[in-house]
């Protein structure tokens, strides 16, 4: 690089690179840019020393500050728990759940915690507002399969339904058709009988034909008047609320194949105070008894 070529027009040295006769000028870097560059370099060296930086074979360079985001999060979580310790203790030591609802502060704490827990754990199946979907009960209405009192809701959340937990609620809607318990004709007639209970359009003759079968097969759980039984988780067949659907086709499907939806047990996955808060929240959605 002994021969420095200088561009005639601008008086600036060229790099020697030439494309189609156009030569690249070798202008110096702007001073401010250079300063920023070197400040960044100096900064990065300080950063290597202080902060975790280079990866190694069996770990990484930890830096003199021993910084760890994971540890920071643990500290932050512990701080949050400490802040909540008092309210949590009061939740757990409340003599019964009604006292939680009647204490505005405690209720507010439970509702706030419950709402966030509901969004994280329950909304997937029950919907963001607890509105439910086919097969997943609406938690806003006043129709409860296993009871809508605070304690009932807490039990359901804790143990689940057909969850495999030894204390879980268990009931069975038999597969009357596919299981061969009733002949096809009787199942078809029963559809009309069930629809008659909730005052829906039906064939009265078919319903009358199915009455004896209902008496034998269904009354045990659903009751003679079809109003169901919360102690067995048997739905009320006389109201307009249906878990799977009240149209003839869906009722027939229910009778033919049976039903057995599962709600998991939350014991072990959520802490006792979290289950309490969730129960208070679900109860507040408006359907609580």
């Amino acid at each position, binding site marked *: 690089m002994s021969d420095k070529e200088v561009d005639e027009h601008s008086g600036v040295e060229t790099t020697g690179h030439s494309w189609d006769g156009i030569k690249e000028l070798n202008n110096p870097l702007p001073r401010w840019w250079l300063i920023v560059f070197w400040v960044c370099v100096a900064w990065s060296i300080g950063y290597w020393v202080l902060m975790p930086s280079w990866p190694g074979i069996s770990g990484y360079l930890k830096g003199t500050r021993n910084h760890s985001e994971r540890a920071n999060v643990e500290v932050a979580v512990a701080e949050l728990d400490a802040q909540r310790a008092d309210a949590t203790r009061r939740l757990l030591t409340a003599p019964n759940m009604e006292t939680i609802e009647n204490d505005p502060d405690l209720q507010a704490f439970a509702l706030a915690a419950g709402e966030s827990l509901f969004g994280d754990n329950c909304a997937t199946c029950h919907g963001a*507002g607890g509105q439910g979907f086919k097969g997943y009960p609406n938690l806003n209405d006043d129709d409860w399969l296993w009871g809508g009192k605070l304690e009932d809701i807490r039990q359901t959340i804790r143990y689940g339904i057909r969850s495999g937990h030894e204390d879980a609620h268990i009931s069975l809607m038999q597969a009357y058709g596919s299981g061969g318990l009733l002949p096809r004709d009787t199942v078809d007639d029963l559809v009309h009988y069930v629809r008659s209970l909730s005052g829906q359009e039906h064939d009265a003759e078919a319903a009358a034909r199915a009455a004896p079968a209902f008496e034998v097969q269904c009354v045990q759980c659903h009751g003679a008047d079809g109003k169901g039984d919360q102690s067995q988780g048997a739905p009320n067949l006389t109201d307009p609320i249906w878990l799977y659907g009240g149209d003839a086709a869906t009722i027939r499907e229910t009778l033919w194949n049976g039903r057995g939806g599962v709600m998991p047990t939350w014991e072990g996955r959520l802490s006792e105070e979290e289950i309490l808060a969730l129960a208070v929240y679900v109860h507040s959605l408006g359907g609580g008894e």
Partner: protein
Amino acid sequence: MSVNEPAPSSDLSGGVVRHNVEAVNAAGTRTLYKAREPIYPKRVKGTFRNLKWIIMAVTLGVYYLVPWIRWPRGPGEPDQAVLVDFAGRRFYFFFIEIWPDQLYFLTGVLIIAALSLFLATALFGRVWCGYSCPQTVWTDLYVWVERKIEGDRNARMKLAKAKWTADKIRKRVTKHAIWILIGMATGGAWILYFHDAPSLARDFFSGDAPFTSYFFFALLTLTTYLFAGSMREQVCTYMCPWPRIQAALTDEETLEVTYKVDRGEPRGPHKKGDTWEGRGDCVSCRACVISCPMGIDIREGAQLECINCALCIDACDDIMKKVGRPTGLIAYDTDANIARREAGEKTTVKLVRPRTILYGSVLAFVCALMIYGLSTQATMVVNVLRDRAPPFILMSDGSIRNAYTVKIVNRENYTRELKITVEGPDGMTVGAVGEEAEGATVMLDAPGDTVRSVRIFATMPPGGVKGASAPVIVRVTDPDTGEEILNPTVFMAGRE
């Protein structure tokens, strides 16, 4: 060039010294890019200088001391007269308390500030820039410090050129140290507006203050030091948008710092015993130029760089007294008056003009609006949010229920017992989570200075609503004060 030594010229009348100096923005040397020329404003004495000292003392006093004023508001509320409380989300200004949803009052204050500036500028030119702009006030303070340590203009120019002796180092270190201390006081006062001043001051020195306090302390220390110490007039000329706007706000009747060309020209040095016949009063001493903190020559007329600080008026009056001519060659005057004098007419000051009437009346209107808004502001705010997931609930008896979350902001500092009534179609019943309900009415306690949220259920019997929805009004009343707020919403009945 302004750094040149003044040429001694003792033969001028009144002992006036003629300075060899050129305005930094002189037309002849102006280029698209120009390195900054240092400006060494000479000390002046006079009416406007005194006025500026007073305004400096008042504005700086207000800035540094206001956070310390106490204003008791009752238990649980800060007793600082002026406080921007980010954590508590309130702005306190003596008897005024602003909540985040009332931020439009801030808009009002900004509009009033802008209109006041318009009006003042239309009447008296850049009085804001010249007297009360923080940039001007702090620069003035910094120049005062500089003058105390390094001496006046000539001494400072000499020191700038001098070799780095122990004396120069001592002076420069002292100057910058005091500048930085002033900067720290400025940054230190700033952060006091955002926290309880006495406790923040204590925490600040014990290292317990929040990070933001240290950050803004450092930031304002730095900006004060840089803006008032080394950038000075460049902030006004290059960074501030206001000089560009002002030309649209002034007119030929605006009182501005003006060199009376009709009286001053033709200018020229005046020797002892010379006649004043056939010449102007300007003796070309350039006292106005060397006293100018912007380094410009007022005799070139109104210009972007001029902040109307009026120091050239004092400088020129001093010279006029020495040469035995009437003062006021440079004075607050209007372009129209120059024209009037040249035409032999009587001069006059027209403060009332269409422009000032417009600015004044709009300003009065906005002020009235603000006073009305502040004096009649509601002591509670109600928001009704209808549940959207699900929009309505079918109950087991076939009735339909909607849920509403009613949020009530209670701006009073005491607990109020409020009545919520839901006015909807006949047959509607109302319930609330955790509150007593009777018929369509819910009573609840709203604690002071908080937002109370309550979920309300409205239920209609089967077939009670004709069509898919019905209008509903949520009425919140305070039986004690009679205050009442209505919130229209709807009741969704689904497909009917």
